């Protein structure tokens, strides 16, 4: 009798009795990158919790977030992918360029979309080749161009003869912007100096000694995890002017600047969404999630840069799911319908205001030819006294004259390598 009850309970728990929308969260709350992984994962999960609590899910179908710990490790990422894909996972957001590279062929073969928001393989922007991979609203090459444009604007449009160094994580992630920065160097006439930092980046004395010797005018950074904190601390130690030190969006969270204290004041980082918690959505978040005791993790990350980014990622996924429901006419969508929804996604200012995030991110629309949005980004600056980030520019577009040919070239190489015929039918 008891056994029968148990079996029935197990079947009820395991079987898809109730329809639900599964959003796997390949998070990392452990390891050298945990300080960055935790706020993102919390934001991602909390937004879906909010939708469940307030709206009863998306289109009336409840959301189930499947969390799986990757530790930023590709092998564990593979295990997580395999263990969650059978549950009807709608979209993967691994928050790791290495895992994204693993998933690009696998997920394409399985027909599941991947959204690598501001990371992953940049040329996935070309949806004719990368049918299931999306990287809107901005990518690394956009980021490289945003940084250079910002430097151009600061110097009245002429930076020939200046020297720009790039401190980068010596991995696929860190190497991504090099090609773009080289092309931009040819166009604008600055001297480019790449400086690699090996995983995990706790030791950077020699790199910053090199910066002291070579005296670059600007330093850009492509770092992640503990590497960011160390680099900002080292820059403060050698009294490098912080307003000439610009990080990519992954090097611009509170965790990165707080350890350096007042020394980090004026440090700049790129971003493709707004910062802080001054948005109507946060009222709902407080009411339905935090006060109800349903916040993910320790619940202390609200309003941090990476929490906002996780929330933004979840918001884009939820909007794409709504779009997919609208297109297909069914509420319980499949990964293939989700993919179509992502490809038809259109983010407008009205939509964001309706969600409760006015002026939170750039407006963009996705199409088969363009899986990467319009390449809009902005620069944020850290105010150590007030302890907060604030945007110091409007959203501006990256140099498409440089980036579009690079995207076309790299995606064509991928298509040739893997035998894909680019098509947008």
């Amino acid at each position, binding site marked *: 009798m008891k056994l029968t009850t148990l079996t029935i309970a197990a079947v009820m728990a395991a079987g898809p009795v109730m329809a639900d929308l599964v959003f796997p969260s390949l998070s990392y709350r452990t390891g050298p990158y945990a300080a960055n992984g935790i706020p993102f994962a919390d934001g991602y999960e909390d937004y879906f919790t909010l939708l469940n609590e307030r709206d009863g899910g998306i289109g009336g179908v409840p959301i189930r977030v499947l969390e799986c710990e990757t530790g930023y490790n590709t092998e564990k990422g*593979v295990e997580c992918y395999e263990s969650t894909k059978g549950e009807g996972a709608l979209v993967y957001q691994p928050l790791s360029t290495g895992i994204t590279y693993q998933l690009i062929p*696998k997920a394409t073969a399985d027909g599941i979309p991947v959204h690598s928001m501001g990371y992953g393989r940049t040329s996935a922007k070309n949806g004719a080749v990368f049918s299931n991979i999306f990287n809107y609203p901005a990518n690394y090459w956009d980021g490289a161009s945003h940084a250079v444009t910002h430097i151009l604007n600061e110097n009245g449009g002429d930076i020939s003869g200046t020297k720009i160094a790039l401190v980068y994580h010596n991995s696929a992630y860190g190497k991504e912007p090099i090609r773009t920065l080289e092309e931009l160097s040819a166009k604008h006439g600055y001297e480019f100096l790449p400086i690699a930092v090996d995983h995990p980046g706790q030791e950077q004395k020699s790199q910053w000694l090199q910066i002291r010797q070579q005296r670059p005018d600007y330093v850009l950074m492509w770092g992640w995890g503990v590497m960011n904190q160390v680099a900002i601390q080292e820059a403060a130690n050698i009294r490098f002017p912080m307003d000439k030190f610009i990080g990519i969006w992954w090097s611009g969270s509170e965790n990165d600047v707080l350890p350096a204290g007042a020394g980090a004041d004026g440090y700049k980082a790129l971003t493709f969404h707004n910062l802080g918690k001054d948005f109507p959505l946060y009222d709902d978040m407080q009411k339905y999630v935090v006060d109800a005791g349903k916040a993910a993790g320790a619940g202390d990350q609200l309003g941090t840069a990476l929490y906002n980014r996780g929330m933004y990622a979840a918001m884009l996924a939820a909007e794409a799911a709504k779009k997919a429901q609208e297109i297909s006419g069914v509420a319980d969508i499949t990964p293939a319908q989700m993919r179509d929804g992502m490809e038809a996604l259109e983010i407008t200012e009205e939509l964001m205001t309706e969600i409760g995030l006015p002026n939170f991110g750039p407006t963009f629309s996705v199409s088969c030819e363009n899986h990467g949005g319009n390449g809009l980004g902005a620069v944020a600056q850290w105010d150590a006294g007030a302890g907060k980030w604030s945007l110091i520019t409007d959203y501006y577009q990256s140099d498409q004259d440089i980036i579009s040919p690079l995207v076309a070239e790299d995606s064509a190489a991928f298509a040739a390598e893997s035998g894909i015929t680019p098509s947008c039918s």
Partner: protein
Amino acid sequence: MFYREAGDFSTTYPQDSQTFPIKFDRYRYYVVLVIAFGIIPFIINDYWANAVFVPFLIYAIAAIGLNILTGYCGQVSLGTGAFMAVGAYSCYKLMTAFPEVSMLIHIPLAGLITAGVVTIFGLPSLRIKGFYLAVATLAAQFFLVWLFNKVGWFYNYSASGQISAPQRDVFGIIVTGPNTAAWAKYMICLVFVTICAVLARNLTRGTTGRTWMAIRDMDIAAEIIGVNPLKAKLTAFAISGFFVGIAGALFFSVYLGAAEVGESFGIDKSFLVLFMIIIGGLGSIFGSFAGAAFMVLLPVFLKNVFVGWLGWPTDLAAHLQFIISGGLIIIFLIMEPHGLAQLWRVAKEKLRLWPFPH
């Protein structure tokens, strides 16, 4: 009772020198082979292949390779990760340069290239040993990772420095790339693991293996009785490199599909394989399998128990998993320094006397 030599008569020399002298062991071995080749391929799914069997089989090859060098020949190596990278990158270069050639040729070739590289890094072993040799192989680890990161030719000048395995087949069956069936992945690894294990087993109980063990036990004494240390040490490095290279090639092409040298073949990998042979048992082929199984399956098992069944938070589960794995390693090293293989040996001795111990 049933586990003993009595009544099992050898009538020929080959019978007398077979790997499993006890009938029960022999049958058990055949049963394992039948299950592995005849049953698992038909029931395996993507999860079991990618999360359990394929990594287990590949790590078993790497552990056999390192066991030959460290367990049988006594030369400590901390460069296994980088040597796997040599296999992976040679396999990648071969796959992209000769797309029409079968993977069954590319993978052993990658093994041969690795054997050459490892032999070069093994040359210092003729002069130094112990900790000093470990440091020399550690240098190999860092040098090779740096090399594969630095020189664009190795990764065909791709923008990110990642290598991705294109789709390749064996007799028309796709074995690499995203469209590979779970059973095909499993089978190619199983075929290589079986060949490697049989090869290693027979090498280690023949002349070559005996010279290795002589060098391991006391190199001066070995030299006096006529073992050539140059030949013994370098063959150990070369053959170990061959196996590790095959493991690296499979690891990249069949298991991961895309790899990045610092992340996939870093120093952690060297330590992981070293832990496998220490836990499994130095100088034992069975120990290589047991150690690989322990290190691959335990985290997956714990994760499924904590997160899948108990529904605990993933970070708590991940931290507990570190504590449990680490604790078990320490307990093993204290309670049974000779590893799982020794437990197995003791169990067999007990079985042989059962049910009438002294």
